[in-house]
């Protein structure tokens, strides 16, 4: 990703503020996984995984790992009270039925209408969509965590995605190392800037118009 560990955690910390008590939440691989560290334990949030757990807890202490208890990325996890196991069809039934309050995922590009591209760079990297299409299309709220720009410095927030889509008009919010942006009625609304970045910097490095409706606060 090219972001420092502190910046990654700053993004995750901000994303966690969107998560309310009792919510059903799916966290993708990468920075989204870090969000779990910032959800208050007394919120009763149930983390969902595509491989068939509702009520996933944090990593086990060293030596307590179980190869048959892992997250969708294959890393060992634990459970919280009220957890359950189920098969993959049920895991996706939960998603399609609209029971996920929030999905947090990474992306390669997001458009001002909320289109997300995150699973294929034709001819270069073709990992497959996994559960991303199901999650992005069916969750009540979709939050994208990503770098503001790609490795060449090009904006990843664009007017129209060039890469094949994961979902059309699926994203509700984008959090990067520079800004917190809402997507409202197919427009980008700048809500916050991330310390130490400025509004000007954010506007300059975003590939689509940003509206400012209220005072833009800085997230530390």
């Amino acid at each position, binding site marked *: 990703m090219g972001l420092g560990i502190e910046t990654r955690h700053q993004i995750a910390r901000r994303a966690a503020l969107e998560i309310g008590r009792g919510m059903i939440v799916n966290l993708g691989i990468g920075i989204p996984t870090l969000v779990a560290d910032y959800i208050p334990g007394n919120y009763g949030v149930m983390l969902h995984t595509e*491989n*068939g757990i509702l009520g996933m807890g944090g990593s086990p202490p060293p030596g307590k790992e179980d190869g048959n*208890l892992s997250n969708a990325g*294959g890393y060992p996890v634990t459970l919280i009270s009220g957890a359950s196991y189920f098969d*993959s*069809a049920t895991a996706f039934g939960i998603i399609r039925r609209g029971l996920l309050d929030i999905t947090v995922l990474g992306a390669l590009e997001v458009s001002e209408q909320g289109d997300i591209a995150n699973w294929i760079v034709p001819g270069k990297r073709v*990992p497959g*969509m996994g559960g991303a*299409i*199901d999650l992005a299309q069916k969750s009540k709220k979709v939050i994208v965590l990503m770098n503001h720009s790609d490795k060449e410095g090009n904006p990843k927030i664009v007017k129209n995605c060039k890469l094949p889509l994961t979902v059309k008009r699926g994203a509700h919010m984008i959090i990067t190392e520079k800004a917190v942006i809402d997507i409202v009625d197919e427009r980008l609304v700048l809500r916050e800037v991330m310390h130490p970045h400025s509004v000007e910097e954010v506007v300059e490095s975003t590939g689509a118009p940003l509206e400012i409706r209220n005072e833009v606060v800085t997230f530390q």
Partner: protein
Amino acid sequence: MVYQSTEGSSKTKQISIEEAATHFFNGMTLMVGGFGGVGAPPGLINVLIDKQIKDIYMISNDTGFPWIGPGKLITEKRVSRLIASHIGSNPEAGKQMQNGELEVEFIPQGTLAEKIRAGGMGLGGILVDVGFGTIVEKGKQTVEVQEKTFMVEPALTADVSIIYAKQADTYGNLIYDKSARNTNPLVAMAGNVTIAEVEEIVPAGQLDPECVVTPGVFVDYIVQSKGVDWKWVWELKQDTK
């Protein structure tokens, strides 16, 4: 307490791994249970490799890692066609796909799971709207039902399904292990021949019928597992620390 007679099937479905191998053949459609290699049957995958089975049309959630689960079959170049939702954790699969050695069809994970379930349940297919507005919808038949539009996704079955479970009784009733359940109960139902590799085999009557996840009627054979013979990614990371 339900009265359970001690009478019943005394025939066991347990076979040796050598006998299991006689059900494999070149060019077969093979479904493999597991998710990222977790819950994949290690012994059955190894015997497929030992017996030189090739030209496999594999259906699995993903291709694991190059040395884990169904990933081994990819690394050994035994798979010529693949249906999966994700190959990102197995660079070897990506390489073979790019140079044309491996034909890959990607299906969104939930749709793939449900297509397998439909096959196992004796249905013709499913109606699903996941993927509209993306390349997933390309070439798909659509149908309008109750004023909503869906893609028609045909069911999937296989010549042979191989799965992993924690416990089986001799009738083939299965109980899984935590998140190693994942696609296994679905894959179990969708094989014309289903072989389960299990950690523990007990006499019929020893499993609580209320706790059975896959009824033994779907399972043709069971083999005793010797356990996982690979290192997980997180173990390798610990080793290098």
